[in-house]
């Protein structure tokens, strides 16, 4: 199954803007390719990525077949309080993967 790599700084000062990087293993099959007998390969992609910080949504993205295999997404957020940052990927064929990271804000 898919595996996700999440990079969140473990510690931050209050109000600091931090970068969050995520990488998930996924084929991101576009639906435009054909196999060796000419049969179209059905689309199989991650369609939505969502990130919540202590339950509040801070980032969301709609992905399209143009996103490369093993989608890498990075973005920024302001470290407001200690807690958990949760990540959620959903996609075709019922794909669903979650991850989380702890952050300590001083």
């Amino acid at each position, binding site marked *: 199954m898919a595996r996700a790599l999440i990079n969140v700084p473990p510690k931050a000062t209050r109000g600091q803007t931090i970068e969050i990087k995520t990488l998930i293993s996924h084929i991101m099959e576009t639906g435009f390719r054909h196999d060796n007998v000419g049969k179209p390969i059905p689309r199989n992609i991650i369609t939505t990525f969502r990130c919540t910080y202590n339950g509040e949504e801070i980032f969301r993205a709609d992905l*399209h077949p143009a996103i490369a295999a093993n989608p890498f997404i990075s973005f920024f957020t302001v470290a407001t309080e200690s807690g958990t940052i949760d990540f959620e990927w959903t996609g075709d064929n019922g794909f669903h993967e979650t991850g989380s990271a702890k952050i300590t804000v001083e």
Partner: protein
Amino acid sequence: MEHRGIRIDATRREMVLAGIAGLGAALIRIEPASATPATMQRAIHQIVGEAPVNKGKVTIDVPALVENGNTVALAIEVASPMTAQDHVKAIHVFNEKNPLPNVISAYLGPRAGRARIATRFRLADTQAIVAIAEMSDGSFWSASADVIVTLAACLESLD
């Protein structure tokens, strides 16, 4: 009265034209996804509607020459103070010549602190890509970048 009559007529004509345009778009959509700048313009229109798209504020960080179109690093940064009053609501990326015009739509808010996203995407051909930022005041800002691709993505068959 005459003025009013003319105005109603014009409105009706506009509606008929809009209907024809919509029908045309529907007919084109039935065809196999052809990669043209026009499809990108339609995809952009679906996001921004009739609002004007200004040039500026957006920076696209993408290599000018790409050897492998299967994985192209892309970063979009928007100049914005990212306060509750003035922030970037969304960043949309489009391409001209892939089978589909959309690349990514990212939704952020004042909690982002900095309006920058990075990802990796596919390019099927040498083409221009366009990034559009939607601001909290409803305005749209854009930038475009040309990328030369030597090995295309998306369309190859498996051997």
